[in-house]
């Protein structure tokens, strides 16, 4: 169930089918395409055009003859600007939301402060906070109101790099703590890669693609894979540690990769980020190499990006990943779909401790 919507705004007509009940769905697309407007229609802050339909579980929020005002929808909304109430302190802002909470499964105000690391700011006036602090209070406030659906509209867009990185890490850990569906609007690839479980990809032509991040990030034909810094996202579980601070992650039944990053418990579900530019292809098994991760793979698809470069989709029996290589390499190696080759992966990042530990 979850959210089902047919959103009409300007030239945009976006269908959302059953946004999953848990996890983060990123609404990703170039800026100026109207992502914020879509989110505002879901929230009921704007109405959208004739024919707009928004349903959540059994309740119709908007149709041609129904319009449920925002305060009755049970949503949480984190805006680009924090929008804290200036006449209240930090803790009073959070309590304001908590007193009006929509359910009983949300965190208490103190717990919300703890999750966002703002415990020491509780008595401060909100005007004295930095931008990053204000946005943390705004996120804590939205959690305290225990919404059925949390909408986040580029919550990090107005912040400097340090504050953005801090909140991004906090959001990654929150992922485990909160069990409400989140729609996260962004045009920043990094946020999507680090946070999203599912992606709803929009492009300028009104094309849309919806799917798990593992699938979308390894599809060379989609813009998600063609950006500066694009990476394949794989999910797996930690299966081994070595004495050199690396963790081995099992993806599927038999694909094993060494990854660097935080040391997590064996059995912990994690996700791996493999930049498309960090994967190279060899036709014979490389020996005496510094590269630890060498996977026997099959070339599935070669997608030219331009005259010089191409993305190659490589598959194992368990998973897929992309390699960005030059057209010249493809010519010299004679690569073609179906061929068995070796993927050499330099630099695998262990991304999140996401999902539930068993």
């Amino acid at each position, binding site marked *: 169930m979850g959210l089902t919507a047919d959103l009409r705004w300007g030239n945009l007509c976006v269908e959302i089918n059953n946004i999953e009940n848990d996890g983060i769905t990123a609404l990703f697309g170039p800026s100026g395409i109207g992502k914020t407007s879509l989110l505002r229609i879901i929230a*009921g*802050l704007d109405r959208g055009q004739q024919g707009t339909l928004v349903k959540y579980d059994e309740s119709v929020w908007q149709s041609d003859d129904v319009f449920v005002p*925002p*305060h009755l929808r049970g949503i949480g909304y984190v805006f680009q600007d924090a*929008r804290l109430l*200036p*006449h209240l302190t930090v803790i009073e802002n959070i309590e304001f939301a908590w007193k009006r909470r929509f359910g009983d499964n949300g965190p208490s105000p103190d717990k919300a402060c703890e999750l966002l690391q703002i415990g020491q700011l509780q008595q401060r006036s909100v005007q004295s906070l930095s931008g990053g602090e204000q946005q943390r209070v705004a996120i804590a406030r*939205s959690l305290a*109101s225990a919404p059925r659906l949390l909408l986040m509209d580029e919550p990090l867009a107005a912040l400097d790099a340090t504050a953005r990185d801090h909140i991004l890490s906090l959001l990654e850990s929150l992922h485990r703590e909160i069990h409400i569906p989140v729609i996260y609007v962004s045009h920043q690839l990094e946020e999507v890669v680090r946070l999203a479980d599912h992606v709803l990809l929009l492009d300028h032509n009104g094309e849309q693609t919806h799917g798990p991040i593992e699938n979308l990030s390894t599809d060379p034909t989609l813009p998600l894979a063609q950006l500066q810094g694009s990476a394949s996202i794989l999910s797996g579980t930690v299966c081994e540690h070595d004495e050199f601070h690396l963790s081995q992650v099992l993806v599927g039944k038999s694909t094993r990769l060494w990854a660097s990053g935080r040391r997590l418990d064996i059995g912990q579900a994690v996700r791996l980020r493999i930049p498309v530019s960090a994967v190279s292809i060899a036709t014979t098994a490389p020996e005496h190499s510094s590269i630890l991760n060498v996977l026997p793979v099959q070339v599935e698809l070669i997608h030219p990006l331009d005259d010089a470069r191409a993305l190659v989709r490589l598959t194992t029996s368990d998973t897929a990943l992309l390699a960005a290589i030059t057209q010249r390499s493809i010519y010299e190696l004679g690569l073609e779909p179906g061929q068995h080759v070796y993927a050499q992966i330099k630099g695998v990042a262990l991304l999140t401790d996401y999902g539930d530990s068993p």
Partner: protein
Amino acid sequence: MNPDLTAIILTLKLATITTVILILVGTPLAWWLAHSQHRLRSVAEAFIALPLVLPPTVIGFYLLIVFAPSSLPGQWWQGLTGTQLAFSFSALVIGSVIYSLPFAVQPLKNTFAQLPHNLLEAAATMGCNRWDRIRNIIFPLSKRGFITAATLGFAHTVGEFGIVLMIGGNIPGETQVLSIALYDKVETLDYSGAHWLAAGLVIFSLIVLSALYASQRNTREGSLWG
């Protein structure tokens, strides 16, 4: 009772009642002026501002005609209450409300116009219905506007003269307010009595205005909203 004391009490009573009515009438009016796109808005605004530019005697003159027992409103009032409207305390209240209306509406209108709409949106997403938003966001954020409106309305009512003279006359305990009592004393060459009242009014006005400006400087909450 000392006639001066009677005049002071009557003035305070008039100003208090007028202020309460000003806030009750002025709040929705100011909200409408701040947010409406209606084409009659500028006309309404002009009417409210009339007392700022017209001599009080002009307004007093028209009110006197309206309040006269022979006029329709005068007759209606007589039928409703059994008393005459002209030269009554009620006439003073109505006149004062009209006369001081711009002083209450203007600060409220400015405050409401500057209320950040985005906070109301945020409140709606936290489950605040319309009344909850008015009570817990609009009112607290408009506090300074209300204080200014009430203070100016009150002080301006205490200071009015022309309208009172025209529609209230000079009935002790009923319509003889301070400014009229002062005028009376000067007319009868009671200069020492006049000094007391005049100096008293100057000091009162100074205290009220100083308190108002001080509160504006110190109100942290309101500092963003005008």
